């Protein structure tokens, strides 16, 4: 009797184990599928696929598909034009954006922390942030010349606002108890600014510089289309003159990819460097 029931018990156990193993295998497949979906590869494939199908209804001069664009890409890569354009656009964006950070972060911190600064600056900021950078292009060309400087000023202008606004939001997100704690531990107002306000605003600043980068990229294209003889914006704009619609597509895809990659790198750096500051970006 006993041994029979033991056998049944053992059989049940093996049965359960098999089921569990099956489940595990299923789980691995499911997790793999989920992983692929989450990585975004499916969206990319889908996009390229639809793009190719859609292009079949038209001519390459009017609407080139991914294959035609690839051909065009080969051509300008071989000529070395694309690298030059990417390099010059990136340089403009990079310098202008860094200048924007240098101006906007301290300003945002001061506005967020000190009411007097806030009352002084806020109306001005709320006025100018609705004037797009491109609106200033002609003025900047007059004031700073047709060279690089006018474009850099434009990028700086464009990236300053999202950084300031998110920095201010970051400052006001700090728990007031932290200031009380600092004060009761003997921190002077200046000390509490540097030891509570600044580190506590890191997440807000980080969101700001990410958004600032995207507005910088957006406005450099406009500037290069209208007032430059190099850069990705210039490439897109002039390709029209040679009926090289595929080059326009190369320009567009490159812009998107650059922004996508830059943001990804920025996020990775942010997560690694400011792990304990409570950055949440997804």
């Amino acid at each position, binding site marked *: 009797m006993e041994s029979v029931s033991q056998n049944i018990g053992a059989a049940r156990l093996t049965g359960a184990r098999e089921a569990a193993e099956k489940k595990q295998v299923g789980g691995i497949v499911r997790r793999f599928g989920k992983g692929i979906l989450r990585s975004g590869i499916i969206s990319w494939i889908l996009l390229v696929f639809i793009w190719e199908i859609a292009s079949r209804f038209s001519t390459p001069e009017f609407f080139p598909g991914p294959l035609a664009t690839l051909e065009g890409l080969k051509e300008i890569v071989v000529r070395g034009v694309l690298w030059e354009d990417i390099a010059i656009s990136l340089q403009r964006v990079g310098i202008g954006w860094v200048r924007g950070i240098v101006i906007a972060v301290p300003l945002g911190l001061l506005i*967020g*922390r*000190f*009411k*007097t600064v*806030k009352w002084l600056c806020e109306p001005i900021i709320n006025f100018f942030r609705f004037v797009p950078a491109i609106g200033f292009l002609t003025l900047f060309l007059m004031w700073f010349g047709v060279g690089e400087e006018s474009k850099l000023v434009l990028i700086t202008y464009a990236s300053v606002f999202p950084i300031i606004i998110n920095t201010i939001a970051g*400052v*006001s997100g*700090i*728990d*007031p*108890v*932290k*200031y*009380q*704690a*600092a*004060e*009761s*531990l*003997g*921190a*002077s*107002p200046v*000390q509490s600014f540097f*030891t*509570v306000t600044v*580190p*506590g605003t*890191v997440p807000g600043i980080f969101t700001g510089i990410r958004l600032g980068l995207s507005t910088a990229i957006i406005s450099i294209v406009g500037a290069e289309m209208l007032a430059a003889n190099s850069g990705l914006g210039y490439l897109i704009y002039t390709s029209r003159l040679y009926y090289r619609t595929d080059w326009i597509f190369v320009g567009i895809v490159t812009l998107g990819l650059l922004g996508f990659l830059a943001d990804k790198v920025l996020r990775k750096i942010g997560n690694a460097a400011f792990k*304990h*500051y*409570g950055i949440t970006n997804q």
Partner: protein
Amino acid sequence: MGKGIKNNKIVVRNLGKKYGESGNKITVNGLGKRYEKEKKSLLFSKNVNPDVIMKDREDGFVLKDVNLEIGEGEFHIFLGASGCGKSTLLNIIAGFLSHTEGEVLLDGKPIIKPGPERGVVFQNADSAIFPWMTVWKNVEYGLRMQHVKKQEREGIVRNAIELVGLAGHEKKYPQELSGGMKQRVQIARSIASDPEILIMDEPFGALDAQTRRTLQDELISIWQKMKKTILFVTHDLQEAVYLGQRISIFSAAPDAHIATRVEVPYDYPRDLNDPEISDFTRLVHASLDAAINAHGEVNADKSAV
């Protein structure tokens, strides 16, 4: 930290605090006043204490005619219902809030702003400690702000961390700590500055029963070792009887005052199941009920402390 011979006495005389002095619904009341005194309200955007947002009450007092004397090294409890103004009084003593009537003195000198001689342990450790600093850096913070030399800081911080039982966790960040450990960080951070008084606002309220009991016991042993005055706010009757030497029982707000003062005549550690102590607890419970219900009565000043 200059330490002369002081008797660490807190004297509160005819203390009162009005609701919404300005009568302006948008400005946060009471608090705005304090910053005017210190010329800070114009400068700072964010030092608002959530305790004083009482915009619906434009007149009257949160606290009225509060008289209190706390001696050196005393473990003193403020007991009262939620919202009775005990935390407001605590915040006034800490220097975060100003009062409108009477005076608050520490060693004969009026309290007008926060200072490291009054260490504060806040209710919510997550809002109070700095998540971007390690345990060590958090505890060291006050000393750095007070420009204590690095060699001196080392020993003080190590002692404080050891005292609260966080040795071995110095390099951890607050996110890696449990709620009880975070509260220990707060306590260590305060005592590192060698305060004369430790002000604690329901510090164990958010902890589970087990952790709370452990921390209560540890607090008692820290207090016995350091001989600091402790001001402890709670609405938990058991906690009050378990911890305190004296209990000030608050009447309900508005016009809250200290209705009764009770001495707890038992040695530490206390056993709340001891029949004598549980009888005593019932007595305190009755006083608390009376204080909450019999609102508007004249301050029943039973014991001359």
